[in-house]
């Protein structure tokens, strides 16, 4: 029974993520993090970071990859069964796709009208910057954790992601390489792995 409820929660969660992600894969990461890590505690911050790394290095969209991975991890850890884990990843992946399916097929019929509508452009001009903030928050949450007690925030560094000062140099170096150097993301991750093997 508990397993059935977990499956339903998994489906519902990824259905909502699929329905409310606007602005591509990185925006979706912020929603997945909000639901899967912050709200349900199904996986930890560091596992989430690992999933993002793996998703970026393997073919296919990041959103689908994370859904598949999270679906398997959540169910197989709760039940100890590989088979149910596979069902879990299928559930999460399908749940993520179904809202797009309904909405795209609806939009297709009205697209020409839709595209030129002032209303649509107006709404998008608000949503785009919001998504920028959401992606920024996803990055911040992987660095610092905020806990509240008696109305006062306490900030703690996420130690699984930043065990020592070398991590901060890696963060800065990867940002520089990717932003100014335009180095390919996969290459940047591989470089991170090699440096990790050498310095830790």
């Amino acid at each position: 029974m508990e397993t059935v409820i977990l499956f339903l929660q998994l489906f519902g969660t990824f259905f909502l993520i699929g329905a409310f992600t606007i602005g591509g894969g990185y925006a979706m990461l912020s929603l997945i993090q909000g639901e899967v890590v912050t709200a349900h505690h199904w996986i930890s911050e560091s596992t989430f970071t690992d999933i993002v790394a793996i998703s970026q290095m393997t073919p296919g969209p990041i959103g689908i990859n994370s859904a598949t991975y999270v679906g398997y991890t959540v169910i197989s850890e709760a039940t100890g069964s590989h088979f149910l884990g596979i069902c879990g990843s299928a559930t999460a992946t399908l749940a993520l796709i179904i809202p797009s399916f309904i909405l795209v097929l609806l939009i297709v019929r009205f697209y020409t009208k839709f595209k030129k509508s002032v209303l649509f452009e107006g709404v998008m001009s608000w949503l785009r910057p919001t998504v920028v903030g959401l992606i920024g928050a996803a990055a911040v949450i992987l660095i610092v954790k905020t806990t509240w007690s008696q109305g006062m925030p306490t900030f703690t560094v996420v130690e699984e992601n930043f065990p020592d000062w070398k991590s901060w140099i890696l963060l800065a170096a990867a940002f520089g390489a990717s932003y100014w150097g335009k180095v390919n993301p996969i290459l940047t991750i591989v470089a991170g792995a090699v440096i990790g093997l050498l310095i830790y």
Partner: protein
Amino acid sequence: MNQEKVSLWQIFAVFAKIGAFTIGGGYAMIPIIQDEMSRRGWISEEELPDIVALSQSAPGVMAVNISIFAGYRLRGVKGSIAATLGSVTPSFCIILAIAMLFTSFKDNPWVIKAFKGIRPVVISLIAVPMVNMARKCCKSWWAWTLAITSLLLVALLNVSPIYIILCVLVLAFGYTYFKEQWKR
């Protein structure tokens, strides 16, 4: 366009190929989709920007939206199902295999070291597209207000991003709607 000639299996196969060879998400997929589809005469050069714009504005995974839309153009709803399953299947199998193997690998000392190096890098790789997007779309004080407020609400108060998108959607809709009414 040779609409009736395309079999569902063929649609599945082409999108499975596209799915298997794009690394790094939706935008990396666009040139490959363009190449595969225009070579087969499934889509004209002028149609692609529309498909991309539509897929970006619809919710969900962009690559999936492109598949749904393109499949629909070819064979209707059945075509869109074939295209979507095609583009998702390769990454589904690969990730599932990794997820199953990773649980037994993750305590390996070499893997731990490698991931210690990878994790800070990943965070930068999330920050870079954010900065690029901010430069493109945060051009007014209001855009900055929206971006910073939503960042703070999520990062500090743990508000779910879903609520934020929902609120902005409603407010933006209301604002734009009444502004238009006012003009008339």
